[in-house]
Structure formats: C-alpha cells, structure tokens
C-alpha cells in the first residue's frame, strides 16, 4: 500500500468505526478494514451496468409539452377553459381560478428507429434518440422548485439529507484519488433553487459532498496558490509542513497527523490534476466544434465537454445544473415562445455531442447520462393573478413530466410510459422520483434498499424510509 493510503486508512477506519452502527455499514467496514481511503473504489452490491454518472439537471423545469410529450389533442383544446375536474382539490403555484388549455406552438416529428416524438426545438437531440430511453411518465410529489429539487436529488423535500452523488461516492468510492469523486458544474448564471444542499452530503461525512468546479476564477475554491507564493515555494512549504508534522507525530503519536500529511500531499496533486482536466483548450478543434464549446467561455457546452473529460479521468459522479427553465409566461424571459428556444439552443447541440462523444470512445455503455427537470409544466396556460398578459407560459406540474436516460445499462431507442391525451396525468407505466433514484443506484450496482447510513435512530436511505421505490426493469438493457 502506498504511504498515503496507509496513512489515510488510519483516519478512515477510525472515522467509520466511530460513525457506523455495527452491521449496518458492514460492507464499508469490510473494505475499510483492508485499509482503503474513504473515496477508494469499492465493490458494489451487484455487478454494475454503469460505472459513472453524468446528470444534466435543467433547473426550473423545462416544459415536456414543448419538447417531448406531443399532444395533438391539447392543441385542439388550445384556448378553451380548463375543465373543472382537473382543478378540483389541486394546488397550483400560480394558476388561479379557471385557466385556459395551451397547445404547443412547436412542431413535433418522429425520429430514429424508435419513432420517438421530439420537438423541432431539439434538432440535434433528435439524431441520437436511438441511444436514449425517454420516460414520459415521470411523477413527483412536490410542486415548488427548491423542495422538488431537494426531493429529486436527496430523497427529502426538506434540508439535511444526502445527495445522489454523495450516495454514489459513499457506496462506490471513486477511481481517481487526485480528483474529487463527485464534481458539480453550475451554469445558467444562478445556483439551482435548492442551493448547495443539492450536492451536499447531508448526514453523510462531508468527504462525500460534491465539489463545485468553476469555469471562471479558481476551478476549485482555494486551488490556486495565493499571490506571492510560487509553485516551487508551495513545494518548499509543503515539505516543511510534512517534516514538522512528522516530528510532531513522533512526539505525540496520533495517527490523525499522518492522515493530515497525506491530505496535504493530495491537495498538492489536485492543484495540478484539476486545472489539467478543466482546461479544454487542448481538445481538438473538431471536438470543440461538435460540442459548440469555446475555451474560456462559461457555457453549458463547455460544461458538457468537461463532464466527459472528468468521467474519462475516473470521476464517479458529475452533476450539471443549468438554470433558467422556469417558463411561466410572466415576462419575456419566461416565455415559451421567446425564451425557451434560447434555452434549448444552448443545450441541444452539446447534449447530442456528449452522447456521441461518449459512444465513440466506448464509454457510453458504462456511463449513465440522465437529463431532466424537477417537475413538469401544466397543460394549462398560466394565468398569474387570475388574468392573461402578453406572454405565454405554463405553471408547475408535479403529475407528469419527462426525463431521459442514456447509456449505462439503459435500453437505447425506448419510449417508456405515456400521459393521457392532454398530458395531464400518467396514462401508462408511471415512474416516481423514488423509482428513478432506485433505478439509478441499481444501475451503479447498488441496492437502494440496502444502501443506508445510520442517523437519528434510522437507517437513512436515498429512497426514504418506505419501500415504495422499485427498479424500473423495463428500462434495463
């Protein structure tokens, strides 16, 4: 074992033994007893299909009715009052009284061997549908952004639980110890509504929280040496830190000191490894062009290319957030006619490029790509304050939305689930957020019912305390 792992293992065993109930984290104890680092790659519960995940979260929730869920009937009803039975007993974020139905202004066509219906707003995505499973029957139980995002990513609409990426690195560790195991890239100018808890470790130890990599400033906070400290000076100080710590460990005997020495060496290696992986300028021009990426820019295209570079280097879970999909129709910026095309233009080509790129590198088979928002949008046109202005949009809709998955053990060219004629309720094969969480963990080789961590008297799990989550077998390749 190298000295770093050896030192860290002390810390780790100690840490885990302090925290884990007997038996509950047996899997981890077993591997840690062998002296592995907290992020060392670990054996999953069963043979995994996906070794890594790229999750593209469209914060604000794009309209499934403009992008994937083609509803000619709804177009027919456009402008008519919404029937009362669809409104009774329902809570909406902004709709008041009786709204009108809203058909999509966009054209849809069938694509690929699967005949998937895709909107004209996603011409590039339409070319890769045969590598994708589109799930048009997603449902959730939350209809406000922050709670819905928290529910999706942490399994709890309130704060304090651990995110999916944290669970994945807790369960599986990561392949490259010089990079964080769980990387987050935020785009669109804002953090997602749920804030940093969406990639937090909650009750899990904070080594499992997502590390935000930024495309301007330091790629990881405090990664760069401060002004006045050169690289060689940093090496000199680290050598001195190591020597003085060694003297102190000899004197006081605490193994924690050895762990800290190891962390400082790892930090030094990260200072080189992270900027290297974050620098897309050495990518061939054709690659940059395929993604629409531009070195130095801050864009979703750059983030997609970075996601591929990160997973290629062994990062376990890459989480992208792209903000700005909350098209209520209360202003031009939230209008599905004026602004939605801007948003789809920014993501469409990079997403298709990402899938194609992973495929040509032979990585799509064991890399799971996930796309979606936190809920859907209403088949009714939003009437904020009870009346209509000049802009058009839709309210939050928890009962039906679309997500898609690609690669990582998921069937290509599958259309899973259906909504009713107007896209209000699920008509066939509903998939809940908990099912999605259970399925993602299953693909990673983890049993969502067993992956747990003891906290506050309960074995906490991503899928929550009940056993309602099921693996959606129909999606599995």
């Amino acid at each position: 074992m190298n000295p770093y792992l050896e030192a860290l293992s002390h810390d780790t065993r100690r840490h885990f033994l302090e925290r884990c109930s007997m038996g509950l984290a047996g899997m981890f104890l077993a591997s840690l007893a062998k002296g592995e680092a907290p992020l060392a790659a670990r054996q999953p519960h069963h043979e995994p299909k996906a070794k890594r995940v790229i999750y593209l979260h469209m914060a604000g929730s794009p309209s499934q009715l403009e992008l994937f869920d083609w509803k000619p009937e709804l177009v027919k009803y456009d402008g008519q009052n919404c029937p009362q039975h669809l409104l009774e007993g329902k809570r909406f974020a902004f709709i008041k009284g009786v709204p009108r139905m809203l058909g999509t202004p966009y054209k849809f066509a069938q694509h690929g061997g699967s005949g998937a219906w895709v909107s004209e707003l996603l011409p590039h995505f339409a070319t890769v549908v045969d590598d994708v499973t589109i799930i048009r029957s997603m449902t959730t139980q939350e209809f406000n952004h922050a709670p819905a995002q928290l529910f999706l990513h942490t399994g709890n609409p309130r704060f304090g639980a651990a995110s999916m990426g944290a669970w994945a690195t807790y369960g599986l560790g990561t392949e490259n110890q010089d990079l964080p195991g769980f990387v987050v890239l935020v785009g669109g100018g804002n953090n997602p509504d749920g804030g940093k808890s969406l990639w937090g470790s909650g009750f899990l130890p904070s080594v499992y929280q997502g590390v935000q990599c930024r495309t301007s400033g330091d790629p990881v906070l405090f990664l760069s040496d401060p002004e006045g400290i050169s690289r060689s000076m940093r090496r000199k100080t680290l050598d001195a830190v190591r020597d003085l710590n060694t003297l102190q460990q000899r004197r006081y005997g605490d193994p924690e000191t050895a762990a800290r020495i190891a962390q400082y060496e790892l930090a030094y290696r990260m200072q080189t490894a992270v900027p290297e992986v974050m620098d897309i300028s050495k990518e061939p021009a054709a690659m940059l062009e395929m993604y629409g990426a531009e070195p130095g820019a801050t864009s979703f295209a750059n983030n997609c290319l970075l996601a591929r570079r990160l997973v290629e280097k062994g990062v376990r879970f890459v989480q992208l957030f792209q903000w700005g999909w909350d098209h209520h129709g209360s202003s031009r910026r939230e209008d599905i006619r004026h602004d939605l095309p801007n948003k789809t233009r920014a993501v469409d080509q990079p997403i298709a490029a990402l899938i194609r790129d992973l495929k040509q590198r032979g990585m799509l088979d064991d890399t799971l790509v996930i796309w979606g928002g936190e809920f859907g949008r209403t088949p009714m046109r939003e009437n904020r304050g009870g009346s209509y202005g000049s802009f058009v949009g839709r309210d939050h809709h928890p009962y039906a939305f679309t997500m898609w998955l690609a690669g990582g053990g998921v069937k290509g060219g599958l259309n899973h689930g259906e909504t009713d004629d107007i896209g209000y309720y699920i008509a066939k094969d509903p998939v809940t957020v908990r099912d999605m969480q259970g399925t993602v963990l299953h693909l990673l080789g983890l049993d969502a019912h067993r992956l747990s961590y003891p906290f506050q008297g309960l074995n906490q799990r991503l899928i929550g305390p009940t056993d309602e989550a099921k693996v959606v077998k129909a999606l599995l390749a």
Partner: protein
Amino acid sequence: MRGRFAVLPILWCCALASPAADFQRDIRPLLAKKCFACHGPDEHARQAKLRLDTFEGATGQDGGFPGIVPGNAARSRVVARITHESRPMPPSGEPLTGREVALVKEWIDAGAVYQRHWAFEKPVRREPAVRDASWPRNPIDGFVLARLEKENLRPSPEADRYTLARRLALDLTGLPPDPTAAEAFVRDTRPDAYERYAESLLASPHFGERWARVWLDLARYADTRGYENDGRRTVWPYRDWVVRALNANIPFDEFTIKQLAGDLLDGATEDDLIATAFHRNTLTNTEGGTDDEEFRDAAVKDRVAVTGQVWMGLTWGCAQCHTHKYDPLSHKEFYQLYAFFNQTEDSDKPDDRPTIKIGEASLPVMKELVPAARLTRIHERGSFLNPGEPVDCGVPQAFHSLPEGAPKNRLGLARWLMSAENPLTARVQVNRYWARLFGAGLVESEEDFGTQGSAPVHPELLDWLATEYVRLGWDTKALLKTIVTSATYRQNSDVTPEAYERDPYNRLLARGARFRLDAELVRDQALAVSGLLSRKMGGPPVMPWQPPGIWQVVYNSETWTTSEGEDRYRRSLYTFMRRSSPYPAMAAFDAPSGETCTIRRIRTNTPLQALAALNDPVSMESAQHLALRALKEGRSPAERLFRFVLARPPSAEETARILALHREAREELRRGGEDAHKLLRYSEVLYAEDRETAVLADARDATVEWRYTESDPGTDWAEAGYNDAAWSSGPGQFGHFEKPADDLKLRTEWKTENLWLRTTFDVPPGGVDKPKFVVRTNSAFEAWINGASVMSNNLGRNAYYEYELPQAALRPGRNALAIKVTRLGERGQIFDTGVVASRKLDFGKVRRKHADRAAWVVVANTLLNLDETVTRR
C-alpha cells in the same frame, strides 16, 4: 451501542463484557436493532401480532402472539425463528451471530426480565469507589479511575503547562492564549494557579462567544430564510442574546424556558422575547407559488423535532408519519407535542412577522394567537393535507406528566423539560458539554439517547454529572469548572502505539483528548495569533473576504460586499451565514449551514481543508501579519512565531527545520520578481477594492454622455474605430417605466426592443487591477471593449451589480466600449453601466531585507498549516 462489538472485538467483547446477559447492555440493543422495526411499538408496522419491546407483548399477555416463554428458551418461538436453518429472522439484514443467540437464550432462561431503557430512568447519583485515592481531584476522576482499574489501565500524567494553557483557552473561549498570558500561567507557582487560570477564562467575554457557537448549531441559526430566495433575515439580536446569557451564566433552566416560551412569562421583558427567536430560526419558503400552510406546518414539525433532539436527545421527528419504531412515542403523541407549538402567529410570511423592534432591526419572535385559533389534528402519514383525529396538547405517556399547575402551552412544556422528574434533559446537556471538551460524548450518539443510541461507557459518571448540574442550580460555568479542573481533563493526550491499539477512540479516558478544531476556531485562531482579530462583540453579521461569485442565488440580487476596517477580522461567530451559500473556508472544515439542527458536527480530514488553510487569502493575510508581528517583537522570529501559533517554545529540531525553510524561501524570494513585496503587503494586494475608482462613472455619480441608437447599426459597430457620429447622444440611465421606482435616474428615454450604446474611457498609463462592470438593468446585454467581446448576460438583476472583467480587456490609454441591450421586462426597462478598477500597487525593487522579511511570511503560512495548529490537544 454503535460499532463496538463489530469493530473492537478485543476491547469490548473480551475485556468488557461480563459473563451474564444484561438486558440493558446486551439484549435491548439487539432486539431494537434486529426486531423492533416489525415487532416494536408501531402497531401499523407490526407483523404476526408479535411485539418484543415489552414483557407483556413478548409473552402474549397483551393478547398478541407469545414469542417468549420466560425461563424456557427452548420452548420460545422467538429462539426457533432466530435460529431457523433456511429462513432465520430477521428477514433482511444480517442474522444474529452465535454469541448473540446465546445471549438471547441465556436472558430468556433467566426469566426474560425487561427493564426500562436506561435513559428513561432518572439518573441515580452514586459515589465512585477506587483503590488509588491519590490521583482523583474530584468525583469525575473517581468514576474514570474505577473503570481504568477494572481494565488494568493507568491514567496518563498531567499535560505540561503550555499544553494546558492552550487547551483551556481554546476550549473555554475559542481563542488561543496570548503568549504573555500563557507564559504567566506557566510560571505561576501558586497551588491554585490552574483554577485561577480556568476562572479567568470562564470570566472572559469570549467565553460567551465560544459557547454561543455551540448553541447556535442546535438553534439552526443563520442570517437568511432558506429555500430558493434565501433572503436576509434579522436574527442577530438573538445571537447576541445567547452570548450575553452565557456570559451572565444564567441558569440553564431559565435559559431554556426563555427560549421556548419567553413570550408567555409574566411581565416578559424585551430579552425574554428576543430569546424566543430560537424557534424562529426555522426556514421560511418565500419562493413564488408556495402554499404558506405547507411551510408553516414544516416549521412547526421542525420545532417539535428540534425540541426533542436538543433537550431530550430523542428523535421525536421520526413519529410524524407513524408511531416511532424504536422509542415510546406514538404518532398521536407527536401531534400532541405539535399542539404546543401550533398556536403561534407566524405563518411562513416573507416579512417574518410577528417581529419586535430592536433599535433599527425587526427580530422575528414567537407570539401566541389569542384566543387559540388552530385545531390540531393528527396528520395521516405525516401530510398536513390528510388531517385525522383532533388532539390536545400533551406529553408522551412513557415519561412524567406535566408539572402540577403547568399551563398547557409552550411554557408548560418548557417546565416539563426542565422538571426534576425529567430523566433526560440534564444528561443530554452535560453530555454535550463533555463532548465539546473531550471530542466525543459519554454517550457518543449525542443526538440519540433512545433505544437506538449508544450506551454510555461511563454511565455512573454521566449520572453524577447530570445530578451535579441540577444540584448546582443549572450553573453552567460551575459545572464546566468542575469538568476542566478534573485530573481526567488535565491528562496528557500523547499516545503510544500500544495504548492506541488498546483504545483507539479513548473511550476509557486513559489519556487527554486530542481532536481537530472546529471551523470557526481554525479561522479565529489564525486571526488571533496574527494580531488581526477584532475583539468587537455583537451587532449585525459581517462579510469578511470570500472568493467572488459564491453568492448566485436565484431571484435575489444581494451581493457579498466585503466589510471594511475591523469588521473584516471579527470572530467567525459574526460572519454572515447564508444558508444556501455557506462561507466556503468554514464549510470546508465541516461548519454547518444552519439549514437543520446540528447536534454534533462530523469531523473530516480532506484535501479541501488543506487547500483552504494553505491558500485562502484570509489565511495568507494572517500569515503576513503574524510574521510582521513576530519580527517586531523579538530577535528570534522562529521562536516568536512558534509561541504565537502553538503557545509553546519550539524544539531544537523544529527550530532547525524552520530556519532551513526560511533560508530556502529567502533565496527564492530574492530572485522572485515582486513576490517578496506581495507577501509583505498581502492585505493591500487582497483588498483591491480599497484602491478602486471609477474609470467610467455610472449614472449615480455623474452624468456621462453616451452615443446610442435604437435601430440596428449593422456589422462592425462594436469595433474601436467605428464612426458613431450619426448616432444620438444622451446620458444614462436609459429606459422607461410605467411606474419608475424612486431610486431610478432615467435621463434618456428608451422604449423599444433594442439599444446600441458606445462610449470611450481612459485608463492610466500603468494600467489597472481587477476591472469590473457595474451594471443596473433588467434587460439582457452583451458588451465589447476595443472590439473584443467581454461579457454577455441575460439575468437582468434590477440593482447595481458588479461583474468581473478579464484583466486583459482594458489597455492603458483610451478604450472603446460598445454595448447591445435587449429588453426582457414587461412593465419597464432600464440600462446603466460604469466601469470600476483598482489602482495598481507600486512595488519597488526587491532588496535583501524584503526577501528576508517575506520569507518569514512563508514560514508563518507553514506554521498555520501544521496538524498541531488545527488540533486541540
């Protein structure tokens, strides 16, 4: 019992386990873990009508299935089921080990006697019995030593005075000792020197600051409301109240009652009301389109759960959906507790009402609805949308009743918590003090004293402390003094490999505690030893330097504006806490975000901590001032630095290594361009905004004429040399509003969709540092400087907002700025911009003395990163 049997077989199974099966120690934890989920208190989850958490249930006397025949393991069905060949119970998870089965059989054969969970019985005060009476200084030591004697272990010798000086100062005040004070204590030969030193620290105003931080973790204190907007909330007067209350040492029962029900006290004072903000730290969801009742309900549930966690160490929150699976709290009882909190006026409103005025500030407080207006009902499956049977205020049956004459409101509940009959409150609180002073509680699961929690290693010590706290009249400082003056606390923390192997987590307390400092202490220590720390107490939260771009919260244009003067160097307690964007250098060291009640922080050791401690400019700034302070004070900077940082003199080896580093650093700095000056003037380099001036004024400060057009100018209009003579001319702000806000200065009307703007500005010959756009607009825009695109933005934050520009975008002399604006707003539009930048610092030549002095900054940076520095030992 967490982890013990599985991971420390030598210590716990052989050395500690006594031969007979003990219900409290062996059987209940086993049943709780393996059986209660399906055969416990929750009747809805109960399988096969079998209940194993009570004697009546297990033996079928309650009408259920008799799984246990007392005195006869062989005839007990439970034994048959746990030893079943092919399908042993439990159905999922690991089956019982041979040893566990043997314990169960032994216990049943001995009569299957149930006892109440230890933590639900009142503490019993016993006196310790030890052979060696010379070591103990007070009863704490008696209990510890009795246990060590049983294990054939000896306590460690007392730590040296330097170590004790630093340990006590960090533990009691959260700050390192001043070297002079440390030295005075070391040289104090009076027999009660240690007690005197401890007393002086307990009397320090910094005591309150240190222990307030501990309490604020529980209070889920933060300066914002949480969720999407996460806007500001004024709660700092409550934080200051906690500091004052701790410094004034108000008894813990009073401290409790004021926070839970200060508003209900007769003749409630302003302070009593301020205290009730404890439970107004719940999150408020001001996201558009939320159901206020949903989040009011969430806040009430949080108050119930947090009250149970903080005062009784119980996980009451588990019972909001169904009866608790492990502890005696039914679904109905949860809502009886909920009823206590269900009559307050607050209702998830964005203005936080009800509030009281404290000077300029409006502080959210608790206020009871009069008359009571809400009927509390059970929430089926925990959902407020599924109200069930109505319930009244009430306390859980498994515990004592409400005290005689206690009102059925929060005040009554608070008195019930502090009642002498309560078996938990004192234990939970003394355990908390112990955990902060020893790195782990006597009950390690501080957050769970229920049947799933860990059992105390020193149960008699826990009970003695609990009864002592009550005997002292809940006098916190007196209790802390008892603990820190014990011989147990004063032990040396050094450990040999053998001792470490024997008891890696020091649960037996055969040595002093050694653990990493909390996030706030890491930062405060760096500021203190460098002399930068401001001792100013209280007031609104401050914003010390943090990396740009951390605050990017949706629908909220608030910015992190670095504080000025001493507010940059206040104790971390006063740093602005935004829930969705915690202060990054502290988050790296496991500081909580304030989103939930944090009973104990999980300490980690990560490379991100190393990066923060090495590279965070605030840490580097401390290194600069620390080095200059050491240079000013003495002839031997190496020794001075060591004494400042670690409150002890360095060893000869340490001095030699430091001097070697200093030499190497000096050589490099002699050759290294401006580095020596940058290190010696690091604060000036860092706070570029102190040298900031407008190179192009915005409309707030001046009237600047722009060239503009509203019709598409074609292709090359953004180039530096473009001829804009045909364009119109006018000053900012540009725009139009149906109802303009008062602070607008719209000077040139713009109502159409697009606006093209051009102007020029001058940059001094030496160039500038850190140029930024200052923009106010609710529109999208794209900007070019000298023909090169420098930024585009469509977020439209309608307030003056700064955006960093690339350093290379500006050149000395004349620069051409071109902007295209696209309207987004519906009811009006505005655009205005300016450019600010910082004057460049003028560094002279690097001389030998600069390199020599700057090399001490490098050494200081190194010392601030030692393991011993971030550790309390």
